[in-house]
C-alpha cells in the first residue's frame, strides 16, 4: 500500500476545493439558507410532519444532508472529469497508485467537503431555527456514508461521461431527482400510495431519513433499516466503482 501517495492525492483534492472555497463551500451554504428562508417561512404555518416538530426543524436536517451529498458528488465528479478532459489525469495514472488508493483519496476528499459544507449549513441554520440534537454518532455515520456514496457516484459519472453534457445529465436527471424525491421537503409517509411505494426504492431516502433521525430522534422507517440499506448501497456502488477503476475503463485506453 502506497499510504503516502494516497495521503498526497487526498490532500491535493482537499487543497483543490479549498483554493476555490467561495465556490465550493460558501456558495452551497448560502444557497441552502435561501431554500430554508423560502420554504420555512412560506410553509411552516401550514405543514407539520411530525408531532411537536416545527416544519423548519424537520426541513433543516434534510437540507443539510442534501447539501452534503450534492457537494460530495460535485467534488469527485468535477475534479476527475476536469483532469480527464484537460489531460492532467496522466500524472495520477503514471504514479504508483492503485485503484483502491485513488478511490479512497478521491472519496475521502469528497467526504471532507461534504462534512465542511454540512457543518457550515448547520451552524448558519442555528441562527434561524431551533434544532434538537438526538444522536451525534448517527449524524456522523450517515453524513460519512452519504457523502462517500455520492463521492463514489461522482467518480463513476466522471469516468463514464465523455463530455460535460453527459456529466450534467447524470447530475440533473439522476442525482438531483433522487435527492429531491427522497423526503427532504416532506415525509414520504404523507405521500399517496404509489409514490410512497416508489420512494422506498430510492436509496437516497434512507440516507436522509437516517440522518434526520440523528437530529430529531424520529424517522419514517426504523433507523436500523436505513443504516442497513445505506451500508449495502455504499458497498454496491464502491464495488462498481472499483471494478471500473481496476479495468481502466475509458481511462487507460
Amino acid at each position, binding site marked *: 500500500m*502506497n*499510504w*503516502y*501517495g494516497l*495521503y*498526497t*492525492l487526498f*490532500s*491535493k483534492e482537499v*487543497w*483543490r476545493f479549498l*483554493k*476555490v472555497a467561495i465556490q465550493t463551500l460558501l456558495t452551497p451554504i448560502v444557497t441552502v439558507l435561501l431554500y430554508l428562508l423560502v420554504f420555512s417561512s412560506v410553509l411552516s404555518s401550514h405543514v407539520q410532519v411530525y408531532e411537536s416538530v416545527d416544519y423548519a426543524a424537520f426541513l433543516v436536517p434534510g437540507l443539510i444532508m442534501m447539501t452534503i451529498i450534492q457537494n460530495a458528488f460535485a467534488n469527485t465528479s468535477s475534479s476527475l472529469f476536469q*483532469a480527464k478532459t*484537460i*489531460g*492532467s489525469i*496522466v*500524472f*495520477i*495514472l*503514471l*504514479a*504508483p*497508485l*492503485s485503484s483502491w488508493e485513488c478511490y479512497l483519496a478521491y472519496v475521502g476528499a469528497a467526504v471532507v467537503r461534504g462534512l465542511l459544507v454540512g457543518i457550515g449549513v448547520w451552524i448558519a441554520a442555528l441562527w434561524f431555527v431551533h434544532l434538537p440534537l438526538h444522536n451525534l454518532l448517527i449524524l456522523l455515520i450517515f453524513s460519512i456514508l452519504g457523502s462517500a456514496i455520492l463521492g463514489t457516484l461522482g467518480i463513476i459519472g466522471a469516468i463514464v461521461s465523455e463530455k460535460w453534457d453527459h456529466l450534467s445529465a447524470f447530475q440533473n436527471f439522476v442525482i438531483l431527482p433522487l435527492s429531491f424525491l427522497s423526503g427532504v421537503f416532506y415525509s414520504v409517509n404523507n405521500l399517496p400510495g404509489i409514490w410512497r411505494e416508489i420512494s422506498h426504492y430510492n436509496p437516497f431516502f434512507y440516507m436522509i431519513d437516517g440522518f434526520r433521525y440523528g437530529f430529531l430522534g424520529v424517522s419514517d422507517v426504523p433507523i436500523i433499516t436505513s443504516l442497513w440499506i445505506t451500508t449495502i448501497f455504499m458497498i454496491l456502488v464502491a464495488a462498481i466503482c472499483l471494478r471500473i477503476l481496476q479495468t*481502466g475503463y475509458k481511462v*487507460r*485506453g
Partner: protein
Amino acid sequence: MSILIQQVHKYYHNLHALSEIDFNIPQGCFFGLLGPNGAGKSTLINIIAGLVYATQGTISVMGHDVRQQWRQARQSLGVVPQELVYDPFFTVNELLRLQSGYFGLGRRNQPWIKELLEILDLSDKTKVTMGHLSGGMKRRALIAQALVHKPPIIVLDEPTAGVDVELRQMIWAFSKRLHQEGHTIILTTHYLEEAETLCEQIAILDQGKMIALDTTHALLGRYPYRMLKLNLTTQNIKIPSTLAEKVQSLTQNELILKLHREHDPIGAILETLRDAGIHFTDLHTEEPNLEDVFISLTHREKS
C-alpha cells in the same frame, strides 16, 4: 535490459494500432522511436507507461511487468507527455511536491525538487501557477515533474514539437546530460535530425508495425547514396546518357546527382562531365541523413 517488449499487439475496435512489436531497449541507451503520424509511437509509449493496456503481449520495465508489477515499473519510469497538460489550480512548486508525494516521497525529496528547479531554470517561477507560464516554461516544468522521483528510464514523447530553437537546444543538452549520468532515454520525435544527433539506437514504426531496428550508424549505412551538387557555368547542358538516371535535379546553374557510394566513384563522374563539356565553379557532396533512410523505408516521397 531496461525495457523488454514481447509480441505486443493493440487493437482499437477494428483498427490494428500495433502489430507484433517485439524488441528490447538496453540499459543506458539513448533510444529513438520514429515514425510518421499515426504510426503507433505514442500508443507504444503509453503501453510502456501503463497509460494504455496492450491487447496482447507483455512489456517489462527494469525487469518488472507493467501489468503485474506495475508499482515497481512505474517507479522506474519518468514520462514527459507530448501535450502541455497541467493542473490549473497549482503552482510549479506545489505540482512538483504533489507528484513527488504520489511516488511516496515526502519532505526528504525537497532538496532534489529544488535542484531540479535550478537545473531547469525555473527557480524564480516556483510560486507561479502553470497557466501563467510560457509554453517553454510549461515544457520545462513537465520535464521536472517526470524526473521528480529520479527514475532510471526517461520517456520524452516529442519533447521539441513546436518549441523555439533556444528551448530545443536546452532540451537536447539536458537529455544528453541525463544520458551521460546513466539514464536510459526513450525519445519519440518527428525531427529526424534530432534522432540522428542524439540517439544511439533507433526503431522505426510505420502503420503499427516495426520496419527497422538498428543502431543509428547502421541505419544510415543502409542508404548507400550521397548527393553531388555542382554550381554550373555552362548553360543549356546536355547530360551524358550514362549519367541520365543519376540526375536528382537540374536547373540553369545547379546540377544534383545521386551517386552510389561504391559504384559511382566521384573522379570518374567528374571526368564524364568534363568530356561532355559541362563546367562548374564549385562542387560539394552531401552524405545521407536519417530522413533519406526514413523515406526509403516508409516508401514516401520527399516533400
